[in-house]
């Protein structure tokens, strides 16, 4: 339970005991009922011999929300992976005569009932007072939509040139804005799809970095204890007591504007992990401390096993499952942080497309009132974060399959 040493701060991860930090969704099993519904009954030989990972899988499957979330997460990452094919248009292609064009709904049938998926064309007229383009649907113009059309060409994963898109207009020159267009007439839908790649990967890269630092420092802190532990704990407390957004803002603003986008991208991930590692470090420390005096570790030590081998062979596997769960829960934090920084204009910069960069377009109320669809990247953020949170929640419950 919470240990309030030094500055006496109870961090969120130890304000609550490990077993109890479950939400309603994670505790669906009623007390007394068989824990694993779809697994063989207790006493059945297949349970007794099931491996730990098998038990975890059973437990995870019980958490219905997490299973649904897992499919969502897989789907979102697939979008990020295949965004060139999925996006009907080049995300950076501008079209001045379609600034803030509204979303076009796809109609499956024509007026006379023939099957022909299409969108209706738009006519635009400039308002004399506001100089804004006013759009009206032109029912006469039918732009057919087909699967696997040839469109803007792209380099798939930087490997080969291709021009097929999952769906799009038959005529490559036609305009098709499924979710509307932005200030420069760029296709909002395609941009959200492309943003998926950057926003999700920044979460992954950032968490990988945090995990590396957190595992090493948290592990050292928990394993050796004493003065080293004390110093590392104070550092973590120090980092956690700073309000993160102002700190990030200060550091991110120092990135020179002349840097290439890739450099900025990595700099931002490093900044995010600078604070992100602390929670992983704390978790690791707690686990290592509780494990290092377990019988199997002492037995290994008495047998003369080297320290390196004890750590990598006995300790690491013992809390791997837990670490995976905590890591999953850290990814959404990274995504939210990147979105916030980019939204403020001190994170990633155009021409890089991330959800935060897209939301920058929706910074003031007048723009949002003219083009509410510019808030849609925010919906993407919420869906991704929600799915990852549910998934992490389920993994955390499953990480300890022996708990009731």
């Amino acid at each position, binding site marked *: 339970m919470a240990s*309030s*040493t030094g*500055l*006496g701060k109870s961090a969120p991860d130890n304000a609550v005991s490990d077993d109890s930090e479950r939400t309603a969704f994670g505790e669906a099993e009623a007390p007394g009922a068989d824990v694993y519904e779809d697994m063989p009954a207790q006493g059945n030989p297949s349970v007794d011999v099931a491996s730990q990972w098998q038990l975890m899988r059973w437990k995870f499957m019980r958490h219905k929300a997490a299973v649904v979330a897992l499919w969502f997460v897989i789907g979102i990452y697939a979008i990020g992976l295949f965004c060139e094919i999925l996006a009907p248009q080049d995300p950076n292609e501008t079209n001045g005569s379609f600034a803030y064009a509204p979303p076009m709904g796809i109609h499956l049938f024509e007026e006379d009932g023939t099957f022909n998926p299409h969108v209706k064309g738009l006519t635009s007229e400039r308002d004399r007072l506001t100089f804004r383009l006013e759009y009206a649907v032109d029912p006469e113009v039918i732009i057919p939509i087909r699967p696997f059309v040839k469109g803007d060409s792209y380099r798939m994963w930087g490997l080969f040139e291709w021009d097929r898109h999952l769906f799009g207009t038959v005529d490559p020159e036609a305009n098709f804005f499924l979710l509307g267009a932005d200030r420069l007439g760029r296709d909002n839908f395609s941009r959200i799809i492309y943003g998926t790649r950057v926003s999700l990967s920044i979460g992954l890269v950032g968490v990988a970095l945090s995990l590396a630092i957190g595992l090493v420092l948290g592990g050292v802190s928990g394993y050796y204890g004493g003065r080293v532990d004390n110093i590392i704990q104070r550092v973590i407390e120090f980092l956690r007591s700073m309000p993160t*957004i102002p700190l990030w803002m200060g550091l991110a603003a120092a990135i020179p504007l002349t840097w290439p986008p890739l450099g900025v991208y990595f700099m931002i991930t490093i900044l995010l992990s600078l604070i992100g590692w602390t929670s992983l470090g704390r978790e690791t420390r707690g686990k290592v401390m509780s494990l290092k005096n377990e019988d199997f570790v002492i037995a290994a030590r008495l047998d003369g096993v080297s320290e390196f081998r004890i750590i990598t062979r006995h300790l690491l596997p013992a809390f791997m499952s837990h670490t995976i769960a905590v890591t999953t829960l850290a990814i959404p934090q990274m995504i939210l942080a990147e979105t916030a920084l980019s939204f403020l*204009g001190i994170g990633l910069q155009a021409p890089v497309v991330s959800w935060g960069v897209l939301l920058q377009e929706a910074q003031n109320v007048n723009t949002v009132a003219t083009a509410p669809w510019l808030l849609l990247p925010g919906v993407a953020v*919420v869906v991704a974060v929600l799915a990852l*949170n549910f998934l992490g929640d389920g993994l955390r419950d499953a990480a300890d399959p022996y708990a009731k």
Partner: protein
Amino acid sequence: MLAYIARRLVAMVIMMFLISIASFVIIQLPPGDFLTTYVASQEQGSSVSIQQIEFLKQKYGLDQPFYVQYWRWISGIVFNGDFGYSFNWDKPVSELIWGQLGFTLLLSVATLLFAWAVSFPIGVYSAVKQYSIGDYIVSFIGFIGLAIPNFLLALVLMYIGFKYFGQSVGGLFSPEYRDAPFSLGKLWDLFKHLWVPIIVIGTAQTAELIRIMRANLLDELNKPYVTTARAKGMSEIRLIFKYPIRIALNPFVSTVGWVLPNLVSGAVIVSVVLNLPTVGPLLLNSLQSQDMYLAGAFILLLSVLTLVGTIVSDILLALLDPRIKLE
């Protein structure tokens, strides 16, 4: 108790020292020194004389090593309340910051109280009526509350206010009160505007606190002393309020240590969107124009305020639960 407070105060001073170094490093990070930026920005006005530049160089020790510069900066703050000079506003930083900081503090504390006031009853309900429909609804809303970036919530609220109520929800005062002297009417006007940012900033923390309250109370509800009290025929409401809630309350109160930094962070970013007269917009602006003394002062003071808030709450907690200081 006094020994505990003394220990905490010493730790606080050390932390403040570290924070001041971190803030100063941030000031120094942008390439070149700020004087070059200043001179470049003044070129059109051409009001900068060579003497003035020399004077500033001397004053802030720009040709001196890092530690000398740091010492001049921090000693100016500690002994004279001099936070340096804002080149963007052409004013001493200390003239610019206090009003904004006050509003930030007001907003953060008000949000903290809001988050506690809302999450406490809901958390208790959610734990006592575990697995009820209400519990599921609360948990689900909580998950969503955690997933929505607060600036997005601010944007959506502004959009709704604009579209359906035809009013702007930004700012802390109506136009007619913005520059008016302090009065009861102005205070009332402030309250009318304050609830939007409070809800926006507080949502995520409230969701988190509900989770914590629920989990803590569930731990307590399964303990034998609860069963004993129940077996002795104590009324359910009295039982819950008299024993488990009081114990579950401690971890809840101690959350201020990490809730406060989050609220300050949230206040900064939401203020930019809602255009509140808090630190947010000015900090962002100073960072973008590399007005580093101003930015450094904000980062320093926000961190120090957070630290002080945390320690005050820790001491209160120690008064509440004497076991804590023994650890």
